[in-house]
């Protein structure tokens, strides 16, 4: 990759347009589940590069560890044992931020500039602007961001925006021993994925395909799946992810009100309401994304 600019194209809770002169390439991290051996090297590389350390925990009766994403574990391997018509499959999925083209977190965020999207597609949290409300967690269709108990800020995978900015691949890509994780220009990655799908089909995976869900405008982290018709068997990867209805309500009406209430400290009630909201497609919010003109 050539040196990547980090031009911001979207900024949370900000109505002024970002600068739009420069054209930059969209990037994609492609995770080929059929090549992944679940070695967790990516988890180590992520912790090392980002200098995060979870506590030494316990075994929960599974190999997954840490058992879930945390403010210190921005990626975890999720292991699913599934009986298929081909016999047992052990489907191992590297979970983490998908860097949605239409990021629900960013839409939901009330704090100006706490979440930004760069022109290369990376969605990044700017913790210094984060107010710890947790709305991004509700807004995320993949259940990714985690609130830190230590500083009440929200953390997730940055797609190593700091590395990408200087022309390096993300740390997990660099370390992956089998080449299951690759990184590059979106078109190149889609082309690579097509080759992988041909190989998988030749091995009898008739439904092999790419996971790049359109309900959120596609993602900048994509999967090659052996069973693309059943993403849910990959440890509950959502089949048709979309941004929750509550985010739409929030955008349309509640946000100005909430901004006022914020100072009064009544946010807890809203949060409760928001978190209980159903996880459905909001046509309004989808439309809003589609209408938006990208620089």
């Amino acid at each position: 990759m050539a040196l990547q600019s980090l031009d911001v194209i979207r900024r949370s809770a900000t109505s002024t347009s970002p600068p739009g002169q420069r054209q930059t390439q969209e990037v994609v991290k492609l995770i080929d589940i059929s090549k992944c051996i679940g070695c967790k090297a990516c988890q180590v590389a992520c912790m090392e590069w980002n200098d995060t350390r979870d506590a030494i925990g316990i075994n929960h009766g599974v190999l997954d560890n840490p058992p879930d994403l945390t403010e210190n574990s921005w990626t975890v391997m999720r292991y699913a044992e599934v009986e298929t018509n081909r016999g047992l499959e052990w489907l191992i999925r590297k979970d983490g931020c998908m860097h949605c083209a239409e990021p629900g977190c960013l839409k939901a965020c009330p704090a100006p500039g706490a979440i930004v999207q760069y022109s290369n597609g990376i969605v990044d949290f700017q913790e210094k602007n984060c107010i710890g409300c947790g709305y991004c967690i509700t807004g995320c269709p993949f259940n990714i961001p985690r609130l830190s108990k230590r500083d009440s800020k929200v953390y997730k995978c940055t797609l190593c925006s700091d590395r990408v900015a200087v022309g390096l691949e993300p740390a997990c890509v660099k370390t992956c021993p089998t080449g299951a994780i690759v990184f590059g220009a979106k078109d190149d990655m889609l082309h690579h994925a097509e080759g992988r799908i041909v190989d998988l089909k030749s091995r009898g995976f008739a439904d092999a395909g790419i996971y790049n869900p359109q309900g959120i405008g596609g993602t900048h982290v994509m999967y090659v799946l052996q069973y693309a018709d059943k993403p849910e068997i990959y440890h509950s990867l959502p089949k048709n992810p979309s941004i929750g209805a509550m985010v739409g309500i929030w955008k349309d009406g509640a946000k100005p009100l909430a901004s006022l209430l914020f100072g009064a400290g009544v946010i807890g009630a809203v949060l409760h309401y928001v978190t209980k909201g159903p996880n459905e497609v909001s046509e309004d919010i989808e439309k809003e994304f589609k209408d938006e003109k990208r620089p």
Partner: protein
Amino acid sequence: MGATFGRGAMTNHWVDIKNANVVVVMGGNAAEAHPCGFKWVTEAKAHNKATFIVVDPRFTRSASVADIYAPLRTGTDIAFMGGVINYLLNNNKIQHEYVKAYTNAALIVNEGYKFEDGLFSGYDAPNHMYDRSTWAYETGPDGYAKIDTTLQHPRCVLNLMKQHYSRYTPEVVSNICGTPKEKFLQICGILAGTAPPDRTATFMYALGWTQHSVGSQMIRTAALVQLLLGNLGMPGGGVNALRGHSNIQGLTDLGLLSNLLPGYLTLANEKETDYRAYIDKRTPKPLRPNQFNYWSNYPKFHVSLMKSWWGDVATKENNWCFDWLPKLDVEYDILRQFELMNQGKMNGYFCQGFNPLAAIPNKAKLMSAMSKLKYLVIIDPLATETSCFWENHGEFNDVKTAEIQTEVIRLPSTCFAEEDGSLTNSGRWLQWHWKGAPPPGDAKPDAEIMAGIFLKLRELYRKEGGAFPDPILNLTWAYKIPHAPSPEELAKEYNGKALTDLTDPKDRTKVIVKKGDQLDGYGQLKDDGTTACGCWLFSGSYTEKGNMMARRDNSDPSGLGNTPNWAFSWPANRRIMYNRASCDPSGKPWDPNRRLIWWDGAKWTGADVPDFKPDSPPSEGMNPFIMQPEGVGRLFALDKMVEGPFPEHYEPFETPLDTNPLHPKVISNPAARVFKGDREMFGTSKDFPYAATSYRVTEHFHFWTKHTMLSSILQPEQFIEIGEELAKEKGIKAGDWVKVWSKRGFIKAKAVVTKRIKPLQVNGKTVHHVGIPIHWGFKGLAKKGFLANTLTPFVADANSQTPEFKSFLVNIEKA
């Protein structure tokens, strides 16, 4: 593999896996234990359309990316592979020309050889050993083995082999292994598809084969299959031993086993006091005409080693100091060491980079043994369990500290990243590495610690004399800083140098190597005392051109991944051993798309260093396995294996069947050594109904990484794995604490309940497996745990004395 091919190491190398059409991982779990090397399996699949097969008691991380997975009961690999051999022979799916020319299929076996009711001829029942004299060729008056190239003779190797494996029908295989018959046949069919000369299969194995009481013979079954299929010596073929430590290949190469000298030269036994007899026994006569018979150079390697050790003092007159070498009464392998310690006969122990309390079976016996030591010296970067065996850690290490009188001395050493040096990987590459950081505290490199001990000892011998001071006082010690030999100095010593000007044998006026210069390779070694070489196999790794191990040119002119200028590969920078066998007898590559070496009319040439006499034309009839006196791969191992010339299925010493379906009177390896008292500590299926197997998981490396933060985060706490069916029977849920016990002790761990371990139907019985990862202990950052080897039996492979960690019996209940 040494018995079959002549050298006991990975035949090919990691990168070469990408050239395979079929990859078999059996007796190993490469994705889990060798994730970096495993990339070449991924390459073979993605770019060579390879079919990937995994056979294992557990559906492993390797199996998760396999095209075909077949389960088998732990310890039954010989039955499975014997079945494959039977399939190939019955269905005529062998590469005939290769088998005839490059194996001992056509050679005729001594008529005294027999196999009956589970025993080969010559069994000495009271001593649990064989008289192996009938396991030989029938030889003519010329000393050469007799041959029947028509393969009609009833005692030619191929016919004996057919007869031997005819018992291993698919039904028998399925009955012993628990492998579904159709899965077994599917795998046979895929392997058979590599019999044509332009198709290859590669076998990748590791400790899943070596750690059985019949481990060496398991490995030999793969060797036999590969010879029958013509896959040996071929790019994308071979039998590939994956090493469990980054430098364990280097350890054996340098002779750090009790019966070896560097370069697989062997120590004399106590009866071999005559130098000439010692040398003659190790310098074989050719068994077929016109063979290279490379071990005929044994005297050159041996004399050069003695010159390296004792310099000018080693002379022809004193037999190059042969009398100063120790003479073995028995082999002092690790199990014998602890047996002797436990008997009170071994009183002091030096333990360098080794954690035997964790790594050797039957912890209770080890504790008893170590508690009887007068002193124990530990050289290690970590505070290992062994170095703290006397500490009480509650249930995890329940000892009475006050009753242990052993004096423990800890000498902190550097870890690999804190020193320069070379590591020899599985693929025989000696790769130089550079220090990444200074060591903490008082830690010193191992060479410095050993030098310190040596210099002190020498001083004491000088001052006080002693029973036998000569070998110590005369040892060559010409390092610039005597108390700190540098890695470069040691590497140069292994490579070897000329002690006088070496001249061209064809033109005595021409000097090839000047006195004092580094040798170019072991071809220049002499048996007249004019060369010194610390390890003939490493000769060529540090020449006058510099440190060949430090080369980092990854250019690959052939496209086969051979990278001849990347590091140094023993022997002689050959990347694929026995590569002469990649050509037909006329010298033409079997596969025009995989041209490794070939005869160009005048010499052997190509993309690799020929593993052959470079100027021997095909018409001369020299065979490709140059380390063997007959030049061919041995389907019949002669007397080189202690329990028989053909691999035979014997049950683990603890078997859930309590019988051997093939021969109920001979259940387990009849030639394995079991010490008095250990046999009584074997359990039976009545009290211990479940087949257990121990193993590593990818998050950890042996017992080291529980000392590191990141690995401990990834897999923090001890667990065992059981199938859903057994869990249901026992009322165990995922995450429950369970107690697992064998006749030797118990551990407690969390239960991982999985679909990946299925009950198997074996000989009319349902056999459940209990999987036991080994990585925990009472020292380190991860949660404290029990040493898994509390459970394992004190018995080992009859040839290598590698303990049977992979197959034993346990019971389990919710804790």
